[in-house]
């Protein structure tokens, strides 16, 4: 539980540390190659946005990072995913441990049909944590981190499905945070939400990035511009351009990127 006690950590120390990187990452579905060798580095405690049109491979790429593509029978992921000097894309690595350190939030809010509290304690209990005092503490901390605590603190036993869409998504974020991941992957986390819920989540992300490295796939270019520090532009299964967000949106180096961010296609 080190992370929670060190909220005052000085960020500049690790300023340019790389939290995760991929080396020539390819994804095949049978004969079809959905991703053609993507190499990227993700800086620690920054938000990196992956943008691109539908079918550009950005979601496929994201889902490879915590080995969620393992659950898709036909998907084959080759290349390296380096995390703490280890290639986590190798068969010897325990995928369940990988997912504990690299959490994920999905496009549609997908809480379990359990109570709010149980949604958060689920993963911890599966890992053998049954100390109710500790669990209670984590429920409170993570809900606060996801800016949901004030709205639900009096009915933690209520079904998670009774919450609004935006609240459900923040619960899903809290649920992912309960495992104290290093990295949080977000797959279009606000595409099913209204503007106010979206703003709430974006605000929560700004606070989260002090302690987590966030990689977010988004269709919404304003969102990428608002929340991210770095942006990677994908097109037809290739990484076209990667740079600081403000440069991607003001002075892109590739014509294709400029066309996309200025809304000429996609």
């Amino acid at each position, binding site marked *: 539980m080190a992370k929670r006690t060190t909220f005052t950590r000085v960020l500049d120390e690790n300023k340019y540390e790389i939290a995760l990187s991929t080396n020539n990452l390819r994804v095949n579905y049978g004969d079809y190659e959905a991703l053609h060798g993507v190499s990227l580095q993700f800086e620690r405690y920054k938000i990196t946005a992956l943008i691109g049109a539908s079918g550009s491979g950005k979601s496929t790429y994201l889902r490879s990072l*915590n080995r*969620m593509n393992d*659950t898709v*029978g036909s998907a084959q992921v080759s290349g390296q995913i380096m995390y703490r000097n280890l290639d986590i894309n190798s068969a010897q690595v325990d995928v*369940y*441990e*990988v*997912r*504990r350190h690299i*959490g*994920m939030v*999905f496009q*549609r809010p*997908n*809480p*379990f*049909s*359990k109570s709010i509290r149980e949604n958060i304690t*689920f*993963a911890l209990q*599966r*890992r053998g944590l049954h100390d109710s005092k500790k669990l209670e503490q984590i429920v409170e901390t993570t809900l606060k981190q996801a800016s949901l605590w004030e709205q639900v603190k009096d009915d933690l036993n209520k*079904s998670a*499905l009774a919450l609004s869409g935006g609240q459900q998504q923040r619960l*899903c974020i809290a*649920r*992912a945070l309960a*495992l104290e991941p290093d990295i949080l992957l977000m797959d279009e986390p606000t595409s099913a939400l209204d503007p106010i819920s979206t703003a709430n989540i974006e605000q929560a992300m700004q606070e989260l990035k002090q302690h987590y490295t966030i990689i977010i796939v988004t269709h919404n270019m304003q969102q990428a511009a608002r929340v991210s520090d770095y942006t990677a532009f994908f097109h037809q299964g290739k990484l076209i351009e990667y740079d600081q967000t403000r440069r991607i949106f003001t002075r892109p180096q590739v014509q294709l990127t400029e066309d996309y961010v200025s809304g000429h296609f996609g």
Partner: protein
Amino acid sequence: MDPIAKSLKKRSLSAKIETRGRLLTQICTLLIVLLVLAIFGFIATKGVAVFIQDHGSLWDFFTKTTWSPDQTDLHQRPLIGALPMIVGSFAVTFLAVLLATPFALAAAIFMSEISPQRGNKILQPVIELLVGIPSVVYGFVGLAVIVPAVQKVAGGSGFGILAGTLVLFVMILPTITSMAVDALKAVPRHYREASLALGATRWQTIYKVVLRAAAPGLMTAIIFGMSRAFGEALAVQMVIGNAILMPSNLASPATTLTSVLTMNMGNTVMGTTANNALWTLALLLLLMSLIFNIVIKYLGKRSALR
């Protein structure tokens, strides 16, 4: 008047066809409802006759063990103790379901979670085939294989609750399995993804998330199997021994409600006490299937709310 406005005021041909079609479906629906009500009314009036006309005792029906409707006791009441067959029916039903559920659940988990491809390719056709086999065939196999086997293992004639249970077990296994598969497949994929993304293992995901979410559907599958077992007549009748006695053990000859009905319905005359008593058994079977249906409906509603 404006021609378009004029045409709007007139009922068009398609609107008339619409009305006719609606009327037709309503009539058909009404017909079905009436038919069901008529059957229910008929069986109910027949079924209570033994208590009203022949002064049978409802208490005796459920608690006494002597079934001989054409004879009367000291109080001039017919001997309609149906307890042995009620016990027989419930015994084979519950034992068969108890036996079949673990196998069915395991098969369903294999088919929907562990290996959907092989499940769909091999198990699905096998199960569909098993559902389609006529019950007389199951009974025949039971008679030729299970009864001698029970005889060897447990002694006695081999006919009895155990043989009936085993035959029913094979018969309801595919029913419960295929409904359980449907229930598991109905669990949204994102539940599994959510669980896996939190680092839960596949088994933890199946046990803690998928099975929990599918619980009402799985209960429905089990009760459906129960309902099928309870109502099965022929196959059970062929192997249970058909003795209207309280079963003393699993291998002693016994009987079920359905067996008594099929064995005796040709041997009684309409309107006699013996015939009325059989209708009472039919009414009991009808009420039981009604109860099973209500439970299934209730579970379905509960799962829809979640």
